[in-house]
């Protein structure tokens, strides 16, 4: 057990401003001070106004989930006190705005309370919007965080305008001094362990940032997209970076245009991607089928949010798995990859581009709202692990004739067969500009040359070709270790999951194992084609298979049922919030109880 493992929740009305900023700055100060952090937040769909919650968990050891209970609640208003005080652990603290809220009497002695007269303090320094930074200053003192780190973070995060920065630094000091003078000289809580915390290098970033950097590392140089929460900042990130590296970023008129621009860009030779959320993917379904049919590589990021339809744009869900895999007219196989963490967003993006290019296929990358906005500490990306797999290009020299249809000649029939039926299903691709490589990318069923053809034989053969091609990805799955396993490999109870639920699962499994309930966990990151052999051998001798996921029907679980004809315990949650470690723990316990009854 780590010495430090602190969960801080910040709540307030977004109209007052800065709730998320407060959280992010506190989180960064903690990170800069040598702690590992993990954050989450809920945002109202309103632009301004509406309740906002930010949660930080900090520890000197890696943190896997947002934490089920709260050590410290920072409540900017009465609503936050009312909503959350019951989550505070015994001996936790409540820090609240004494000018705008009052803890209910029943809290009593259970928790420590610090009322800060935030409005008064802000008025003193003539900076009404400074309440959040004052609070941060107070926390720095309360938690005995290094003041210089706090100053550094405030400078980085809010240092754009000199004047405002000075005000903010004053606010920081005001909060710090208030606690020192009015609450306690000595900091009541020492957050930094005596060891000084984590010494290794750390980045502090969100899933969307890691993902966008991963795209650049993965060779992506063409992006077309349309804004949508919670994917927009991927586009915004690349809008700033791509022009510097000869890449192209286009804000398209809609998602249909975006994906078609990507198909054009990729056809022309650029590694291409678009990022969106469920409603955008819904609009891309036709083009996705077309990408499968024309065999054009393209990466589509789906930052899943709670639906259906407009739903709850700022809440999390894992509800698009089936859309990602099956969203097509007729059987149009594609690759589906799901990263499991912020850090993993980087590495899986690299894999995603490599797979899409290798297999000349659309690839859907399933992130989620929670992972996308969550800020965590992570080790710097290991560029040694980044290896680019090229697209298999046609080589005119290996062609039986290399000047057919070429410039300067122009006669004769085409020899280049764009859709050549090969053993592994992959056909060498030519790029515009290559003499003799001319062909038409074709959405109709076709002969090897690309010329339309409608015989049952060609259609049947091409279905096999398109599927066979993707099956190769299973080898990469093994070779690139596109999965995580942990726990006890001999356990009778297994958890097979996907995506960002891995964090709470890790935590729950640690707890369960410490109580003698062993669990074997597998998180494949390649979801289609499904690594049937690997999953199959993993679950073969288990007595219970738990599949946790954030959707109503248990989409992944049902896929496993269809594949393995095995009974599955569906641990489904669909409230728009991340999975709680406690729910996973309870399910494990239940599974063990049932095993006992059976025995």
């Amino acid at each position, binding site marked *: 057990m780590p010495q430090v493992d602190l969960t801080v929740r910040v709540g307030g009305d977004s109209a007052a401003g800065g709730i998320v900023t407060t959280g992010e700055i506190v989180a960064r100060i903690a990170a800069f001070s040598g702690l590992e952090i993990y954050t989450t937040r809920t945002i109202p769909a309103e632009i301004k106004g509406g309740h906002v919650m930010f949660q930080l968990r900090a520890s000197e050891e890696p943190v896997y989930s947002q934490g089920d209970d709260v050590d410290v609640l920072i409540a900017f208003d009465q609503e936050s006190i009312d909503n959350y005080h019951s989550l505070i652990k015994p001996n936790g603290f409540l820090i609240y705005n004494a000018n705008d809220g009052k803890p209910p009497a029943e809290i009593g002695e259970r928790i420590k309370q610090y009322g800060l007269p935030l409005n008064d303090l802000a008025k003193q320094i003539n900076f009404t919007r400074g309440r959040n930074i004052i609070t941060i200053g107070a926390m720095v003192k309360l938690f005995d965080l290094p003041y210089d780190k706090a100053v550094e973070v405030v400078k980085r995060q809010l240092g754009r305008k000199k004047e405002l920065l000075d005000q903010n630094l004053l606010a920081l000091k005001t909060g710090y001094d208030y606690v020192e003078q009015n609450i306690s000289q000595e900091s009541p809580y020492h957050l930094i362990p005596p060891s000084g915390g984590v010494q290794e*290098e750390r*980045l502090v970033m969100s899933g969307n940032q890691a993902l966008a950097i991963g795209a650049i590392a993965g060779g992506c140089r063409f992006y077309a997209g349309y804004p949508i929460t919670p994917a927009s900042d991927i586009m915004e990130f690349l809008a700033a970076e791509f022009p510097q590296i000869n890449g*192209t970023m286009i804000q398209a008129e809609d998602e249909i245009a975006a994906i078609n*621009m990507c198909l054009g*860009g990729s056809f022309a030779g650029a590694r*291409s991607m678009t990022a969106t959320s469920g409603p955008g993917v819904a609009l891309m379904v036709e083009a996705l089928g077309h990408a499968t049919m024309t065999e054009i590589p393209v990466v589509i990021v789906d930052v899943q949010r709670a639906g259906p339809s407009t739903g709850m744009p700022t809440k999390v869900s894992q509800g698009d798995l089936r859309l990602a895999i099956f969203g097509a007219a007729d059987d149009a196989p594609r690759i589906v990859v799901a990263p499991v963490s912020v850090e993993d967003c980087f590495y899986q993006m690299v894999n995603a581009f490599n797979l899409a290019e290798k297999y000349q296929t659309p690839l859907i990358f399933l992130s989620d709202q929670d992972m996308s906005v969550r800020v965590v500490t992570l080790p710097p990306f290991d560029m040694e692990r980044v290896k680019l797999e090229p697209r298999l290009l046609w080589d005119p020299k290996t062609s039986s004739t290399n000047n057919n249809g070429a410039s300067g000649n*122009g006669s004769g029939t085409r020899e280049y067969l764009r859709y050549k039926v090969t053993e592994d299903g992959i056909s060498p691709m030519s790029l515009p*500009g290559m*003499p003799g490589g*001319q062909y038409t990318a074709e959405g109709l069923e076709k002969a090897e040359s690309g010329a339309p053809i409608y015989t049952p034989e060609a259609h049947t053969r091409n279905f096999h070709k398109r599927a066979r091609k993707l099956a190769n990805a299973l080898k990469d799955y093994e070779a690139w270790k596109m999965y995580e396993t942990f726990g006890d490999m001999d356990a009778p109870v297994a958890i097979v999951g996907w995506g960002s639920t891995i964090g709470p699962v890790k935590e729950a499994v640690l707890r369960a194992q410490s109580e003698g309930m062993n669990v074997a966990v597998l998180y494949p990151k390649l979801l289609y084609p499904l690594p049937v052999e690997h999953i199959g051998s993993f679950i073969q001798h288990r007595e219970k298979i738990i599949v946790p996921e954030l959707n109503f029907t248990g989409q992944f679980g049902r896929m496993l049922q269809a594949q393995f004809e095995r009974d599955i315990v569906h641990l489904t949650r669909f409230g728009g919030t991340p999975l709680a470690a406690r729910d996973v723990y309870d399910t494990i316990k239940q599974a063990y109880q049932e095993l006992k009854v059976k025995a």
Partner: protein
Amino acid sequence: MLSEPQTIPLHFDKVNLKPNDYKSDVKPIWCPGCGDFGVLSSFYKAVSELGIPPEQLVIASGIGCSGRFPAFCKSYGFHGVHGRVLPLATGIKMARPELVVCAVGGDGDAFSIGMGHFPHAARRNVDITYIVMDNEIYGLTKGQASPTSPLGLEKKSTPYGNVDKPLNPLMLALASGATWVGRGFSSKPKEMTELVKQAITHKGFSFLQIYSPCVTFYDTYDHFKQVTKPLPADHNPSDKGSAMKYAMDDENLFLGIYYQEDRPTYDDAYSGIRQKATKGAYSLEQVMGKYRR
């Protein structure tokens, strides 16, 4: 009076090929007499006269009889889904500005399902040539009214007569900011070839509407022969007001170059952005640096 068109900086060495050298081995599936045959011939002729190497030419299309066009050319081609030819062509051009990119298709593809993309390609001034083979009907789906079908037309989907006032493609192009706007007729091959050449040569988004009758579902050859005529000699293509006046004429359907304007192309503008953005060496280490604690 035609203002000297700004020519594209040819990124290729001109080749010396005959129109037939641009013909692929896929046989057109069009009905005998279809206007699209004429457009195809003029196109072969135009690109041959311009000396464009087939491998530097990309033709994108959507779905429709006219959408089958790319496969009949020995260039690179992209037969996209219905209505999405402009985003496709934009992607190709922006990824590889040195290519000559043409977009082709029908009136339904362009102005019904594809309507949403047209003003955007035009306003961005993507340096592509868009040739719409307008037969005022849905050919491939066997004869329903299209967005350019005249009022009153009785076809399968409008058995009591069409009540949807037709769109005016030229006006839409002009209102959207297209920098080259012209109109041809597939029965006027010489003029059409010239228009195709001018459209391709124009630096920026060129929109060329070509009346290309559908003999099977809506034979308008005679009609167009009667109502089309060359743009008046005194029309000045740099005068947008004049272009609009002639474009709005319902009685006379003028053929020729309505409008032409010089404005930075999308790839040029983006090059500008790249210059502005680039501040020396770039490395991911540097990018990560911003996130180091």
